């Protein structure tokens, strides 16, 4: 029970939990049975409706959509990183005009729905005489939108670096750009890798919106293919949902893994302390990381998934210093108590 709310239970509490467990399992079974029954009576479980998804040619077609999804997500990611990076630097610039323009850009694209940005990328460019097709329009829109988001991650990443790093660099006589290039950015980038992977997961989800301009990602392929015409909507969207789920879940998992690795390596002493611990502790730690990741995701603002509100991030970074200290203390105490 990873919660401050729940005390260690006494015998009566344990008995209650047992009863609640049994009741909730029963309720769960009843609900599940109802759903299956409803699906059955609505004729959704007949094999004919699912069979199209076992035909390799159909699956190949659907997986082609997955490839398209990944293609657009990767392309958008690469350009978003590059452009977002420059906007981050722009926002940290000492020139007020540059700063102002960057702020305007970032704030504009952070405050409109992605779908509107996609329409701008498609209809807008078309009206401007640029008939670039669905893929390019979609990537342009995703880049415009995500570079704004990423620039905030970058800015927070750069700012969150210990001020000591800057001071140390300046102390040995480095000037602004060499300092950025040699000292600050490499560290900032390393620190941002998990956030970037997490953003890639979000991006993959967002590619689905390319649907509205006819981009052949998974959803469009899943619903429009003649090979699936025997299948109903329910089946098609369930399968499409599963495909997306696996993709996004794996990317999120990777992001979490990277973040965890980074944490353990950066805490150092904490990692040493874990040395003696068993698997359970590591599981607990990953649970904690899970919670932290979620917290971060929540704090990251924008879209639930779409990362990072600058303020929260910056504040988060500041608080993190504090909590880390507290946690270190607490952890220390806990461990001691644990061994007591």
């Amino acid at each position, binding site marked *: *029970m*990873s*919660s*401050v*709310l*729940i005390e260690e*239970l006494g015998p009566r*509490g344990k008995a209650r*939990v047992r009863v609640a*467990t049994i009741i*909730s399992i029963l309720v*769960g079974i009843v609900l599940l049975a109802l759903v299956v029954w*409803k699906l059955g009576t*609505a004729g*959704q479980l007949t094999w004919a409706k699912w069979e199209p998804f076992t035909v390799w040619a159909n699956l190949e077609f659907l997986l082609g959509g997955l490839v398209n999804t990944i293609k657009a997500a990767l392309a958008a990611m690469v350009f978003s990183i590059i452009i977002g990076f420059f906007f981050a630097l722009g926002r940290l610039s000492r020139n007020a005009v540059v700063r102002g323009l960057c702020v305007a850009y970032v*704030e*504009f694209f952070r*405050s*409109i*729905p*992605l*779908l*509107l940005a996609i*329409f701008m990328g498609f*209809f*807008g460019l078309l*009206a*401007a005489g640029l008939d670039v097709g669905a893929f390019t329009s979609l990537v342009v829109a995703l880049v415009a939108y995500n570079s704004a988001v990423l620039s905030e991650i970058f800015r927070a990443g750069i700012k969150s670096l210990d001020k000591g790093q800057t001071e140390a660099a300046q102390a040995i006589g480095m000037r602004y750009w060499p300092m950025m290039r040699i000292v600050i950015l490499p560290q900032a980038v390393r620190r941002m890798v998990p956030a970037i992977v997490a953003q890639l997961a979000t991006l993959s*989800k967002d590619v*689905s*919106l390319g*649907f509205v301009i006819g981009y052949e990602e998974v*959803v469009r392929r899943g*619903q429009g293919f003649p090979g699936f015409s025997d299948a*109903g*909507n*329910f089946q098609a*969207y*369930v399968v*499409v*949902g599963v495909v*997306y789920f696996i993709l*996004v*879940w794996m990317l*999120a998992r990777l992001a979490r893994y990277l973040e965890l690795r980074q944490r353990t390596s950066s805490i150092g002493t904490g990692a040493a302390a874990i040395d003696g611990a068993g698997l359970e502790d590591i599981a607990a730690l990953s649970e904690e990381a899970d*919670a932290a990741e*979620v*917290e971060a*995701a*929540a*704090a990251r*603002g*924008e879209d*639930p*998934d*779409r990362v990072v*509100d600058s*303020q929260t991030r910056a*504040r988060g970074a500041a608080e993190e210093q504090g909590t880390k200290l507290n946690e270190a203390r*607490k952890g220390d105490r806990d461990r001691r108590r644990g061994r007591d």
Partner: protein
Amino acid sequence: MLEFYTEYWPDYWDGTLVTLRLVVISFTLACIIGVIIAGFRVSPVPPLRSFASGYVALFRNMPLLVVFFLAFFGVGDLGFVFGPFPTAAVALGMYTGAYMAEVIRSGINSVSSGQAEAGRAIGLGFIPLLREIVIPQAVRTVIAPIGNLFIANFKNTAVALTISVFELTYISRKLINETARTWLSLLGAAIIYTVILLFAGWVFRTLEDRYAIKR
């Protein structure tokens, strides 16, 4: 340019009203679902915890578009047919609710165990502890992320156009087709979104300042 907006203001206004209605209903729903799911997630009853984790994982790893289509056409195939607006409100509420649950859970967990222990040590029972110590402290840490969720939820209402909800983004798209003034049509919606979000941002910042812990 101005004539364009004076001429089509009624269209934009209709769309804005739909968007606002959608966001109010879906966000209220998200709050309710969030509290329930978060409660499940921190409860000592294992099946409830598993259910809550499953719920959160499901909605966090699926595109909103798929959620909408499943809720509209998929559920419709099962014989449950609801109109576009109610479907969109519920689907969006359930989607944001998953994120809300995580925000609330992390808010509860952000209250240090020392605070709870101190409360127990002076004899506070479960409910008073929750009311006097945990919730007031959790609320403070949770306002900013909830504000962000609101903004996300607000922007996500646009996806409802795919199931025939005539909200603001739909209107701008409709105006493109009717007038062929592409950029004007799109900008009109963008400006309305920005203005509303500026206002929402101000509200949440004010709330945050009011409830900030003095340090």
